[in-house]
């Protein structure tokens, strides 16, 4: 709840290099991610707008806190780590993504996985644009 309330990174960018909107068809939640990155493949700015549940807002907040300054390749690892945490209950192994452990209680609640993953999926799509 604290992470969701923080809403770190909430807002819009003035000149995003990519912008992706993703909806969760099951509940109607909506995430918009805007990002910029430099030629060295480092994410420089990120902003998000979330109409969603606490889990969705918490993930967006974590992304807003932990992804700026990271290499795009490292960010791709984060989604894999998160999916493994949710589906298998395995703790994140990469040192950048220990913070994902906050979502461990969601493991076993299959209907909530998409709530947690939606912001990451939007981010991954944005970085592929």
């Amino acid at each position: 709840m604290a992470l969701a309330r923080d809403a770190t990174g909430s807002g819009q960018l003035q000149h995003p290099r990519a912008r992706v909107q993703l909806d969760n068809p099951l509940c109607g939640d909506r995430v918009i991610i805007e990002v910029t990155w430099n030629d060295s493949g480092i994410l420089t700015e990120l902003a998000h707008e979330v109409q969603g549940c606490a889990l969705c807002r918490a993930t967006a907040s974590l992304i807003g806190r932990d992804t700026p300054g990271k290499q795009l390749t490292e960010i791709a690892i984060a989604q894999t780590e998160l999916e493994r945490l949710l589906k298998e209950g395995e703790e994140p192994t990469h040192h950048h993504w220990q913070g994902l452990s906050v979502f461990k209680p969601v493991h076993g609640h299959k209907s909530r996985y998409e709530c947690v993953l939606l912001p990451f999926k939007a981010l991954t799509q944005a970085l592929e644009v």
Partner: protein
Amino acid sequence: MIDMQMTKPDATAFNPAEVKKQFPIFSSHPQLRYLDNAATTQCPMTVIQAVDQHEHQSRANISRGIYPLAEMATEAYDRARNTLARYLGAQDASEIIFTSGTTGAINLLANAYAADLKEGDEILLSLAEHHSNLLPWQILSRRTGIKLRFLPLTADGRIDMRSLNKQVTERCRLVAVTHASNVTGAVTELGPLIDAAHSVNAAVLLDGAQMAQHGPLDVNALGVDFYALSGHKMFGPTGIGLLWGRQDLLKKLTPPFGGGGMVHRVTIDSFEPADLPARLEPGTPPITQAVGLAAAAAWLMDLNLNAVESHLNHLTGRLLDGLNSIPGIKLIGPDDLYQRLSLISLDLAKVHPHDLSQIFADRGIAVRGGHHCAEPLMKFFGLMGTTRASLALYNDETDIDALLLAIEEAQRILI
């Protein structure tokens, strides 16, 4: 259905605790407070036994085999159709077309109608429809160029009949609306709708998914032309439902799907469809599920339904009173007991329906949070979703009180 204008029956004639014992799910999950009955009702033992017995003793394909087992299966399937015909008050069992559910039934009708519609023909829906009674018609519209019209809603989500005469035009071929909303619980006022539709020779389809669990119907007294329902929402198995239609109208439908069992004669160039109901049921039907659905219908017909209605009326009133006393709650739909079902949607300020549902789930309370497959209705209310509690006859006051307490706890945790 609840209607405060009706004479109040004797609530003491119904004992929910005794009825609840007939549902094994509550033995498996003693702490469960199941309030998601608009999505799926639980199965009483008699339904489970009927399915089990059919699989143990009568499993075979129907209508073709001449050995005794095949004849037993065929008889069981035919008996199921007869039982459902009685449940709906159909004039003939051949008016019952088994489908996979309400969605399957409406898609069947939409596809069958396709052959007889011309560009510019119109189908009238409402803004309160479940996606199952919207998307099939959208798909049909794309295929045929027909126009979809929509009846507006009143502020509390009832279908607003004031524009009926304007919306039902000479080009209207079908009016397809919900019998009762899966979001608001509002029961549709049928009289004016049916009169308007029939005045231009348009047929009327009711989506009865929510209504069917509330006891036998009389489709002829209702005056409708088609009726769709799902087994899993009326204490029966999943994977089974039906389309009822007036025989003269069903006979005119061009079978939209082909396969075994639905033909009189086949050549390499063409085929001659069988009579009703087989012409609209290609392939091996859901035999076991139909047997289970018939057991559910028979079980419902044996209940004291006036007493059940009184019980649900009492619980719904208790829930409405409780919700109205909690600050920050907004009821989505009618806030009284007039012409509504025992399901209530709510919006708790600043709390996402999934978060509220999660708090409930952690306390053993099963509800549904989300858009309930009714996105246009959510848009009408300006919401992403609601939290919905839907009651059935095995619920009691402790379920209601637990839900109300959990809402107050959720407010402390989430706001």
